[in-house]
């Protein structure tokens, strides 16, 4: 299954915390409904992507489903045009591993 970030945001800029939450909800709905189906999170036509966005989307997925499930079933794709995407993605992943700080973030995000 493919989920288009651009279609969800209707913009080429995935910058805001609220953008990330929108994408998180779309992926979560799909994942909960379809179980173990592979999900491709498609960044086609996305020009910019912030760490804030990745924390709110993939970071929350990691907190919700755990590292193993996200690694196995949910994959970003078509992000070659986005500057430093993998660097930021790794940063987001590190934030998750650094659980003490991440928990504070998550509590705030869902407050």
């Amino acid at each position, binding site marked *: 299954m493919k989920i288009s970030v651009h279609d969800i945001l209707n913009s080429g*800029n995935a910058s805001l915390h609220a953008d990330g939450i929108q994408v998180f909800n779309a992926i979560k709905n799909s994942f909960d409904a379809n179980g173990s189906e592979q999900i491709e999170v498609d960044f086609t036509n996305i020009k910019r992507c*912030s760490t804030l966005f990745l924390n709110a989307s993939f970071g929350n997925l990691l907190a919700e489903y755990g590292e193993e499930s996200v690694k196995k079933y949910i994959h970003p794709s078509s992000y070659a045009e986005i500057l430093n995407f993998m660097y930021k993605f790794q940063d987001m992943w590190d934030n998750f591993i650094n659980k003490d700080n991440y928990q504070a973030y998550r509590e705030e995000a869902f407050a």
Partner: protein
Amino acid sequence: MLVSKTKFDLNEEVKIYLGQDNIYTDVSGIRQIIAFYNECKAYSDCTINIKLDNTQWIDGNLCAFLGALVYRLSIEHNLKFSMDAKQVSAKCNILFANDFLPITQNENYYRTKSCLPFRGFFPKQKDEFYNYLENDLFAHSAMPKLSLEVQEQLIDNLSEVYGNIDKHAETELPFFVCGQHYPSKNALHFTISDLGVGFFKKINAQKPLEIKCCGDSILWAVAGNSTKQDAPGGSGLRNLNNYLQDNNGAMQIYTGDAGWCSKTVNSVLYPDGVSSLRNNYLGSTINLEFNTKNLNFRSV
């Protein structure tokens, strides 16, 4: 304690002087604008006539800061503002040139290539903000000819700063931008002012033992500590500061009761670059000073 405000008929005008001298992009200039703001705050439901009698000069980019405070006064105190067009024209016509004040005639007379227009964006207007960065800031004729990669990295860092305004400023009020080229100084200033809660509240909540004042919170954010801890500044602030320092530019930050300037770090008077604003400014202002003679294309 109840603070009484002086109420007027909206048709009445109260004259308040904008500043006492030259209003530059430094602690002294910021203090003058905050003093003007505090004086206006004593009034509500009337029109403030901004007087320039004592003002010799105002840096055009500071319209972002002035505009933000004027906006807050208009919302929170129901104030209207007026200025004498002849006085503006004679003393500070930059206020016409950068769209801070509307022009109804002789538009071409005031337009100048040295200005980046004054604009306000609500936090969710991301596409409009990026358009401004691409079409007004980085396309400005005075901007150094940056490689596309460097430009994109700078926009990316500004994007992180912008995202943090939306996330951490705790406000729905707009933020304001403005810029100015100073050919004699080989500098282009770009200022962003928001009306949020500033740096201290969020950073102090994360590090109450380490961060005890607004100055501490600026230093903590500029050092890049907020990168991993989801706090104001994010990685963008640190990266922008590193880029500007590496390329003979500078950065200033004003929030709460503190100001910080990268140029004064390690100086005798302000070894950590922090100085007092003597008053409290609820919000944060970031000024980026690009060196327009810089031919260094190093990456961010």
